[in-house]
C-alpha cells in the first residue's frame, strides 16, 4: 500500500481541484476519504506506481498527515428547502442533518437526545417522510424539502395538531414534543389529514409514534391529541374522577371523561 511516511511531504498543496491524475500525494487517511468518494481508484494506482518508479526526487520528511484539500473535510455546497425557505449553505461530508440544523442554521426546535436513532427527538420530515435527522448526513437532503417542528404550521400559526397538543397537555418538559409532532404529522398525512381519518385507532397512533421516546410520560395525552385531530372531535384517554370536598364518591361525582377509545 501507499507509504504515507514517504509521501507526506509531496502531498502538501495537493487538492482535488488539481485533478486526479495530477500526481498529488496521498496520506492513508486521505486515501480512505477518497475511496469513499469513489471514482479515484485509478488515480491511486497511478500515483502509487509513480512512487515505485522513484519519480519523487528525495525521501520525504515526515511532517505528519496533512489532510487539507481532501474531499469532505472542507464544507461543500448544499441546497435544500427548510420550512418552506430555500437554504444555500455549505456542509462537511461528516456533518449530520441534525448538527447542520441546530449548529449552523440555529433551527433548535429539533432536539438532540440520543444522537443515534433511538429516541425520535430529532425527527424532521424529509419530503413528507418522518426521519431521524441524527441518522442522516446533511448532504442526504440535497434538493429535498425538510420540515422541522417550526414549519408545521402555516405562517406563524399553530397547526391543528400543534394546537391539539396544547389543548390535551400532550407535553410536559417538551423535549420530545418536536419529534412527536413530526411523527404524528406524518401519520395524519398518511391517514388522509386532520378530520379525515375518523377510523384511526389508538393502536395505529401507537404504531406511528413507536419511535418517539418521552420520559415525562405524556404518551396517553399524545394519543388523545392525535386521535382528536384525526377524528375532528375531542377524544380523551385518561378517565379522571375527581372526588371534591363534600362528595363521597359513592357514585361517580361527575361523568367520567372520555374513556379508553
Amino acid at each position, binding site marked *: 500500500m501507499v507509504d504515507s511516511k514517504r509521501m507526506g511531504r509531496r502531498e502538501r498543496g495537493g487538492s482535488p481541484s488539481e485533478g486526479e491524475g495530477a500526481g498529488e500525494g496521498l496520506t492513508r487517511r486521505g486515501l480512505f476519504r477518497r475511496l469513499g468518494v469513489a471514482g479515484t481508484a485509478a488515480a491511486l494506482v497511478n500515483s502509487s506506481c509513480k512512487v515505485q518508479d522513484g519519480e519523487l526526487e528525495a525521501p520525504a520528511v515526515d511532517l505528519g498527515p496533512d489532510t487539507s484539500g481532501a474531499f469532505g473535510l472542507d464544507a461543500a455546497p448544499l441546497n435544500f428547502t427548510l420550512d418552506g425557505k430555500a437554504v444555500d449553505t455549505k456542509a462537511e461530508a461528516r456533518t449530520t442533518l441534525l448538527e447542520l440544523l441546530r449548529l449552523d442554521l440555529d433551527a433548535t426546535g429539533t432536539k438532540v437526545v440520543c444522537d443515534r436513532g433511538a429516541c425520535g427527538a430529532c425527527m424532521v420530515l424529509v419530503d413528507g417522510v418522518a426521519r431521524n435527522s441524527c441518522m442522516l448526513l446533511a448532504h442526504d437532503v440535497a434538493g429535498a424539502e425538510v420540515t422541522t417542528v417550526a414549519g408545521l404550521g402555516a405562517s406563524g400559526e399553530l397547526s391543528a395538531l400543534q394546537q391539539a397538543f396544547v*389543548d390535551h397537555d400532550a407535553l410536559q418538559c*417538551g423535549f420530545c414534543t418536536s419529534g412527536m409532532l413530526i411523527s404524528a404529522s406524518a401519520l395524519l398525512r398518511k391517514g388522509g389529514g386532520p378530520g379525515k381519518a375518523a377510523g384511526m385507532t389508538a393502536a395505529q397512533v401507537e404504531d406511528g409514534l413507536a419511535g418517539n421516546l418521552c420520559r415525562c410520560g405524556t404518551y396517553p395525552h399524545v394519543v388523545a391529541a392525535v386521535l382528536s385531530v384525526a377524528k375532528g372531535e375531542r377524544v380523551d384517554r385518561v378517565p379522571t374522577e375527581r372526588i371534591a370536598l363534600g362528595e363521597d364518591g359513592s357514585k361517580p361525582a361527575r361523568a367520567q371523561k372520555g374513556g379508553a377509545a
Partner: protein
Amino acid sequence: MSTKVTLSLGYGKQLSKQKIEVPDGEPKPWDATVKTKVVGRAVPRIDGPLKVSGEARYTHDVRVEGMLHGAILRSPHPCAVIQSIDLSGAEKAPGVRAVHAMAKAGDRMIFAGQDIAAVAAERPEQARAALEAIAVEYELQPFVASTRGAMRDGAPVVHAAAVEEKRTGADEPGAEKAAGRLQGNIRPGRSQKRGDAKRALRAAKASFEATYETQCHTHSALETHGLMIRWEAKDAVTVWASTQAIFGVRDEVAAVFGLEPAKVRVITEFLGGGFGAKFGANAPGSAIAKAAGELARTAKAPVKIMLDRQEEHLCTGNRPDSIQTVRLGANPKTGAITAIHVTAHGSAGIGTGAGVGRNASAIYTKVPDVLVESADVFTHAGPAVAFRAPGHPQGAFAMESAIDELARQLGRDPIDVRLAHDTHPVRRWQLELGRERFAWNERRREAADLRSRNTRIRRGVGCAVSIWGDFGGPDARVTVSVARDGKVAVKCGVQDIGGGIGTVMAQVAAEVLQRPLADVRVDIGDSAFGPGVGSGGSKTTSSIAPAVRNAAEAAKAELAMIASRALEGASVKRLKWTEKGVGVGRQTLSWAELCKAIEGEAVVATASRPRTYGAFPKSFPGYPTPQIAGAQFAAVEVDTWTGVVRCSEILALHDCGRVMNEMTLRSQINGGIILGVGYALMEQRVLDPGLGVVLNANLEGYKACGIKDCPDISIVLTEVASGNNSTGSYGIGEPATIPTAAAIANAVGDALGAHVRSLPITPGKVLETLEAAANSSSNSEASK
C-alpha cells in the same frame, strides 16, 4: 403573632371544623367552603404554544455571541491510578481555545466515566476530536462492580476513608442522615425503629421472610445535563443551566469560583426534565460547572458543556439498586402483623443515599414492632442521586410484595391485610374506592380460575400504597404587579421542570384578582426574578402557589386603598370585587378605571409563604406537615410460555390537597405511572461485573417505556383540605410513581400464584419463578 382560625377541613364527606394557628398577615386559607373558579380547572399550560412550535429555547438551544463548546475526557477504567496526563495534543488540536485538567498524575479514578480533562473548541466535533489527542497512562487497580461482590470480605475497597453523605434538595426532607462507620465497602446508614422488632419476630406464631432485589435505574431526562458559563466581569458570571434548582446552581457556582451569590445570575427558561438529578451546578459525577467556568475564563469566551447520552448514563446520577430482606411476624388466627424487620443494602456507586423509603416504617402504624435498617454499599460505579421519590419505589416494592405474599400464605385478601394495619383515613378510603372501581373481587376470582386451569395466558391484579409528605416551604418570594394598563404580571425565579408551575402561578393570580387568565403574564426561569425553590420533594407547587396568592392578596389590598379613595372614602371592608372591577353600593369602578388611578407605573407586591401550619387529617411522621396518601391498582397479562408480562391497566388514586390544575396534574400522574411501569418491567442499567463498565449507556439498550408499553390509565383524585397553606395545595410528582412497580409485581404474583422478587420483572425471571413454584409444589406433593 398568630391567630387561631376555624377552617372546614377533611376529605370527601368527612369534613369538620378545625382550629388552625395561622401566622398574622396570612390570608384566610382556602378551605372546604371555598369554591375557586380558575384554580383547579383543567387549563392548558400557558407556555404550550412555545413548546409545540419549537420556539422554546432550552439550555441546549441557547446560543450567545462567541460561544465555545466544551467536552470532557472520562476515565475508561472502573479503578485506576493516573500515571501521566499529556494535554499538549489537545492544546494544538484544530479549533481548541482552552484545555483544563480535571485530574492529575497520582489521582485514583474510582469509576468508569470520571472526569480527566476538559477542552473548549469552536465546534463540538472539534472539542470531541481534541479529547482523543489527550494521552493518559493508567495503572489499573482491582475493582468491584456488583453490590453483592462489594459486600464480600476481601472485596476491593472503594473508599479508603470516611465518606461524607452528600444530599441535595431532592432528597426526602426529614429522612435520617446516614451516620454509621464504614466497614469495608459497607456503611450502615438510616434506620427507622418502633418497639422491638427482633423480639416480636421471635415471639411470632407465623412468620414470613423473603429477599427482594431492585435494579439500578437511570433518570434519563431527555435533555442531558449541561450548562453555559459566561464571565461578565472578574467577579460576575451568567449561567444558563439545565437545572431543577436555579438557586442551588447559583450557590454552587458562587462557591466553586469564590463569588458572591448576588454576582451569579442563573437562567433556565425551559428545562428538558430532571427527575431529581439536576440539583447542582456540577452533575452528580462530573464537575461540569467547574470545567465550563475554567475553560471560559481561559478562553475569554462563553463555554457551553452539554453532556452526551452516554455520559448521562455514566456520571449524572441514578436510583441505587437494593437487596432487601423483609421479615414479618404474624398471628395466623387474626391475620395481624406483629413485627416488620427490613434489612436493606443498596449501592449508590461511589456515592451515598441508598435508602428504602417509608412504606415499611410509616404506613402500617398498627404494627407495634418495626425495624428498618439500611446500608450503603460502595461499588466502582457512577454516584447515585435523588430520583423521583428517592428510596420509596424500592422500599414499596419489597414491603408491598411481602404484604401480598403474607396474605397469600395466610389465605387473606391483600387489601384487607393493608386496611387492618394502616390508620391513614384517606389511604383507607382510596383502597376501598379502588377495590370497587377496579372490580377487584371479580378480577381476583378470574385470576384464580386461570391459575387453577393452568392456562397459558394468565391475568392478575395487585395493589400497593404510597406515603409522601407536603414539603413545601417559605423559600420563594413571588412578585405580583398590576400595571396602569390593567395587566397583571407574576414573577419568581423558579424553574419549570415540566410540571407546569407557571400555569398554576397564572391561575392563582387570576383567581385572587378576578382577572382573565390571558391577562396574566408569568416570568420564571431566571434568578433575577427573585428567590424560587428547587423542584425536589414534590414541593414546587406548594412552595410557589401560596406565595403567589399572598403576593396577589397584598397587591389587591393596595388596590383596595386606591379604590377606597376613588370611591369617596368607602371603607375597604365594604368593597365588593367582581370580574368587572370594584364597587360599593351603587358606585362602581371598572378594573381599567381602578388601574388608571394607580400612582406610578404599577402596584407591586412581593410575598412569601410561612411554614406549613396545618396537617389535617394526618401528619407525615416526624414532620408537622400533611402526609400524602396514594394507592394504585394494576392489572397484568402474563404469557407463561414466554414469560412476557404486559401491564394492561393502572388505576391511580391520589390525594393532592386542593387540585390547582386538573390537566397538568393528570399529566404528572401519568408520568409517575409510566416511569413506574418501566421500572417494574424493563429498565435496568447493566454494569458488567467483569469489566466494570456500563453496557447499555444509551437509549436503545436501556429500555424506557415507549408509547406501546403504556397501560390504560384511569385516575381518581381524592381531594383533601389539610389547612397546610393559603391555597391548600401540595405535591404529586413523587407520590405518583411510588406504588406503581409494587402494584405490578403484586399483580404478577396474583397471575402466577408465585412472586417474582426481583425488578425488572423480565421474561427470564417469570419463567424461573414459575419453574421454582412448580418444583416446590411437586416436592410437596411427593412428600405427602
